[in-house]
């Protein structure tokens, strides 16, 4: 699969009479982290939800590996900002739940995978703890581990770090980037935070205010490279790129008025 791994084919979306997404055609490469960046309420979440089959396009088709998305399923795992894990299951139980509807794994394989992903997110010591007793950052890591355990090739993340403090947030961004590279996942990441977008993205798709339309499509990996150590945040290229993105965002906001 090449550039048309994940494809928006003349997709529009309206809720009743309200248009939310203007006709959009897009092609997204596998094993890349794509950020949908746009002002609050612009329709970027709706675009992401349509990839997950949680909302259906009003017209047009979204295809994943050539197969049109007809509803939610394990191909696309969700990581929400809040209510991201089940409070009645322990940390290990939540990871295991990711595999609950897979019948291709034996009980032993499931146990091994739980252990593996607990380690990956550094929560081995919290395996038997309930989610409301761990920090917000740990909870978001847990949600990521659950989707990885499920084996979803595509991760959909809706402002997953929006409720975290600045330091935790930065840490999770670095970790997410590492996880993406190691696990070779395709990640669609929705945010309105320009810094976060530039730091994380291989590619930023910038959206207008509602109804959403693509206003800029930026290849960040081509400029910053794919590996993102924290130090890159203080580099000149990073600043330049951030400012460039910020200008587009501001211009959009101006036109809005």
């Amino acid at each position: 699969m090449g550039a048309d791994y994940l494809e928006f084919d003349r997709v529009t979306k309206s809720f009743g009479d309200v248009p939310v997404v203007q006709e959009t055609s897009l092609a997204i490469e596998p094993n890349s982290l794509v950020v949908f960046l746009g002002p609050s309420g612009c329709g970027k979440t709706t675009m992401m939800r349509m990839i997950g089959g949680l909302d259906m396009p009003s017209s047009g088709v979204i295809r994943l590996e050539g197969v049109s998305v007809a509803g939610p399923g394990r191909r696309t795992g969700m990581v929400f900002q809040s209510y991201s894990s089940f409070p009645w299951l322990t940390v290990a139980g939540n990871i295991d739940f990711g595999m609950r509807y897979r019948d291709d794994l034996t009980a032993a394989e499931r146990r091994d995978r739980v252990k593996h992903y607990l380690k990956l997110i550094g929560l081995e010591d919290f395996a038997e703890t309930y989610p409301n007793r761990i920090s917000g950052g740990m909870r978001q890591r847990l949600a990521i581990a659950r989707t990885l355990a499920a084996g979803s090739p595509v991760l959909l993340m809706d402002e997953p770090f929006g409720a975290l403090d600045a330091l935790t947030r930065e840490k999770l961004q670095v970790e997410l980037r590492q996880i993406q590279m190691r696990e070779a996942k395709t990640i669609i990441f929705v945010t309105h935070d320009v810094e976060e977008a530039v730091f994380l993205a291989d590619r930023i798709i910038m959206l207008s205010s509602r109804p959403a339309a693509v206003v800029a499509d930026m290849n960040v990996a081509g400029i910053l490279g794919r590996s993102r150590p924290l130090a890159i945040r203080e580099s000149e290229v990073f600043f330049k790129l951030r400012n460039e993105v910020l200008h587009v965002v501001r211009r959009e906001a101006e036109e809005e008025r």
Partner: protein
Amino acid sequence: MRHLIAFRGHAPPAVEAAVGIFTAAVLVAVWELAARTGWVAPQFLPSPSRVVQALWRMTTAEGLLWHAAISTLRVWVAFLLAAAMAIPIGILMSSYRVIGAALEPTIDFIRYLPVPALVPLSIIWFGVGENTKIFLLWLGTFFQLVLLVADDMRRVPHEYVEIAFTLGAKPRRVLTDVALRAMGPSLVDNLRITLGWCWTYLIIAEIVAADSGLGFVIWSARRYVKTPEVMAGVVAIGVIGLVTDQLLRILHRRMFRYL
């Protein structure tokens, strides 16, 4: 001392318990005093010690425990019947909008009918036997509970449902693996509260048509102005309610340790 009465301040649990017991004790003491000094006539307000005496006599010699057991059994039969119907119907009502839309107006109408208003009708339908009592209790709880259950289901965060769907769950599994688990704590809470209402309707039912049960005991004691017995019957209901409520709270804590 001063920090105990700070606006919106906190008090240690031991202090809270002590203050609660102290207040109750003062009230009982004032009551005892008012009765002993003859400030109020004993037919109206017998002293607490006389009520306790009556309670003891009724328990040991007049089969109060048997009446209490009958009443408790009636409450639980009707309550379990109401819950067994309300839980699935309530869940269906918020899982499928059409079912909710179909049932809500009817349920709302019946819900507002005061149970006592339906006593005559229920006697015409079921006579004065057990069926009438069970029916009245069921009537008082089912229509309230079904809406509470529907609401519990509605308040399950949609994120949980969508997470399950994106992990490959089918709707039926989303219901059993996620929605039921997520609504568990509030459902058990609502069951506990509704069980309390059952007692209200039980007394009405037993006063109208019964020859057994705590309502009957209270009502027949009233006929002979045996005020201590009347109050003892009321106290018995209070004790049963308190014990049941505490037991259900403990059950709630055990079932939902993660909270």
